């Protein structure tokens, strides 16, 4: 083999593509020719570089996230979330959507404001906080958010009690994260991202790793102070947000740097979605750093409304670089989980045009009518998934009225006002007299299959009433019926004799909120009847079978920014 032949074969040689004889000839030539050896070495070096590149990028998988963003950008979708306020008011305001006993313990701070510094100094304090955690391998945030437990991760409601929301995030050796509210959880285990809505056993899966997903970005941002700084600073520049720094000395003499950000969402005050999600809310955000360690120690977020400020978020537990149990990255899914189809994967129907040409109101009507006929195949063209819960809830529904659709600056679809009459719904109420007053009181709500919907936490024992004996003689069924009656009469004092203070408060809030929106509360209040009671030895309580007939008036959210261009129900049921 001469030099020309050898060089022609060098790449094949380093790739191992030569047959034995050619390979031996090549090797023999290389042993005798320094120039070809140098050429061989150069090719081998380049091959190693190329192989190394392939190895470092073997796990890269950007297709789905890019395509999702591409579709979102194209349709000018503003929010990442795909499932919003699903079955948010399943039980109507009559039964309450949330147990109210999740009381928050706020840290009592003895503060002595000393200095007011500039925005640049505020950013400097945050930057030092970011530097203090530059070698972050993991972080765990545990906070309290005023929200509905099953609703979106960024959903806020000043009238709701506080619920725990947590983020676990591991940066090394590979990125993993989990965000959890009581009834909604999402886990990114390094391979895929799966969300579970526990009230419906609905799952949503992105088959790839994500840096954040659904509407958890606001929490990730707190975990990654560099992003927070970037976000707050960009907004300060673009939207004129005000940043300030104060110092405070605690009772124990420790100095804290407090950065306050006044965030304006830019969403008009009269917008339907205003102040419903972190991103569209006007807030005052308070980041508190330890002046010595520079570490971020707490975050408080206040909703700033014309009527005054309400605290909606309190983060007081931040664990830096603590080992995270591997169980955190595992999500136990129920056997009968219903998987929601991702909007971007929605394909066209054979008669797609029929659906694509509908108005939002026509789509809402077609959806409710399909549910009314229990034609789930048809209803499934408007919503995914159609699971048993939804069938129970909307099966047989009758439309009373549909209003003119309206829009929000913060939502890419439309809202259609509706008034519907639901089929009687069966549910169960757990009552117990294992208390000091020895009378039956309501302890929890269960669906018709005895799955817990709402646990009523009593912060104090039921009190002994002046005529306690009369109440103690009531049967479990009579107690539940009396509870319903007091509720429908809006008799809060009487209602409190049967249920926890937080339940009364929550119901009252819902009624007041409904009245503010001009609803006829008496007309909309479900008619509820208590039936047979069954003793559960396991739970040491009575379960009273009940049913409710309810008129529901709300706004259904529909959007058509998907590849099929069909309206999809996105929330507001």
């Amino acid at each position, binding site marked *: 083999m001469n030099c020309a032949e050898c060089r022609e074969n060098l790449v094949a040689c380093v790739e191992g593509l030569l047959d034995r004889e050619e390979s031996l000839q090549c090797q023999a030539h290389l042993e005798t020719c320094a120039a070809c050896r140098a050429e061989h070495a150069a090719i081998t070096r380049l091959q190693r570089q190329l192989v190394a590149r392939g190895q*470092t990028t073997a796990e890269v998988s950007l297709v789905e996230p890019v395509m999702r963003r591409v579709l979102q950008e194209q349709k000018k979708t503003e929010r990442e979330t795909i499932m919003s306020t699903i079955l948010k008011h399943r039980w109507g305001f009559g039964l309450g959507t949330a147990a109210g006993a999740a009381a928050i313990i706020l840290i009592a701070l003895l503060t002595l404001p000393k200095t007011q510094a500039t925005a640049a100094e505020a950013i400097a304090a945050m930057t030092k906080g970011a530097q203090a955690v530059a070698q972050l391998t993991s972080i765990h945030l545990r906070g309290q958010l005023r929200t509905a437990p099953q609703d979106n991760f960024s959903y806020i409601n000043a009238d709701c009690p506080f619920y725990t929301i947590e983020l676990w995030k591991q940066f090394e050796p590979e990125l993993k994260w989990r965000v959890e509210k009581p009834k909604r959880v999402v886990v990114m285990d390094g391979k895929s991202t799966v969300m579970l809505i526990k009230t419906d056993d609905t799952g949503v899966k992105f088959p790839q790793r994500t840096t954040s997903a659904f509407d958890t970005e606001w929490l990730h941002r707190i975990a990654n102070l560099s992003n927070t700084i970037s976000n707050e600073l960009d907004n300060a520049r673009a939207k004129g947000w005000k940043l300030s720094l104060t110092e405070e000395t605690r009772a124990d003499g420790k100095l804290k740097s407090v950065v306050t950000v006044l965030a304006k969402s830019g969403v008009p005050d009269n917008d339907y979605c205003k102040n419903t999600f972190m991103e569209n809310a006007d807030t005052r955000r308070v980041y508190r750093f330890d002046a010595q360690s520079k570490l971020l120690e707490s975050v408080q977020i206040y909703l700033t409304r014309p009527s005054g400020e309400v605290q909606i978020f309190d983060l007081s537990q931040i664990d830096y670089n603590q080992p995270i149990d591997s169980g955190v990255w595992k999500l136990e899914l129920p056997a009968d989980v219903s998987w929601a189809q991702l909007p971007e994967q929605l394909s066209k129907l054979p008669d797609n045009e029929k659906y694509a040409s509908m108005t939002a109101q026509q789509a809402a009507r077609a959806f409710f009518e399909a549910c009314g006929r229990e034609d789930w195949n048809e209803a499934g063209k408007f919503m995914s998934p159609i699971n048993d819960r939804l069938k129970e809830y909307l099966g047989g529904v009758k439309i009373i009225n549909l209003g003119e659709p309206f829009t929000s600056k913060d939502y890419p679809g439309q809202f259609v006002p509706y008034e519907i009459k639901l089929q009687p719904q069966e549910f169960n109420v757990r009552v117990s007299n294992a208390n000091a007053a020895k009378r039956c009181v309501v302890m929890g709500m269960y669906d018709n299959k005895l799955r817990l919907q709402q646990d009523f936490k009593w912060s104090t024992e039921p009190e002994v009433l002046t005529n306690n004996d009369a109440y103690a003689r009531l049967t479990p069924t009579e107690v539940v019926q009396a509870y319903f009656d007091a509720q429908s009469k809006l008799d809060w004092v009487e209602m409190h004799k049967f249920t926890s203070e937080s339940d009364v408060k929550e119901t009252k809030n819902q009624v007041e909120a409904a009245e503010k929106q001009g609803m006829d509360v008496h007309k909309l209040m479900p008619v509820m009847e208590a039936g047979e009671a069954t003793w559960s030895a396991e739970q040491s309580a009575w379960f009273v079978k009940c049913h409710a007939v309810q008129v529901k008036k709300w706004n259904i959210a529909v959007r058509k920014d998907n590849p099929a261009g069909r309206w999809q129900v996105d929330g507001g049921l």
Partner: protein
Amino acid sequence: MDLTDKEYVERCRDGHQEDFRVLVDRYQKPLFAYLAGRLRDGLQVEEAAQESFVRAFLSLKKLRKPESFYSWLLGIAGRVAKEQLRSMKHRQQDCEVTESIMANAADRREDYPLEEAIAALPESYRQVILLRYYEGHSCQEIATRLDLPLGTVTKTLSRAYALLRQELAARESAEPTVNQTELP
């Protein structure tokens, strides 16, 4: 046989947006490697890579030479990376941001000309390099996939090596840049 970059770009422009996924699939790994040479960590790189593809998609109509899609994409990625670094630097000037991040990024600047050199290859050569090293296919598998004799694949690979080495040698003395004539 797969369509060329030019054909896919034209199909995307004609409303077949779903075809953009083929281009993402084709170039995600070299783009990632290119950005990894410029930025700090995997997370930043992934974000920058996504951002580059999205910007490319939104600007496809402005691409004058569809056959140069990859080279153009690298130009976009270069600007995205610069923006990220500048944004960090800007904050540093404002308020003493994270020197270590900048230092880290600077430390890793030596790697990325390889992707630029690959971008400069004619498409048939580039395709073989990407399939062989970024997709991990053997030459025999490439031959089957492209419906070519194994000998042709080997020759193409040899020629690609020669062109790559020429390109890298030419870049060695120059400041690393990519084709930035077509701004998105």
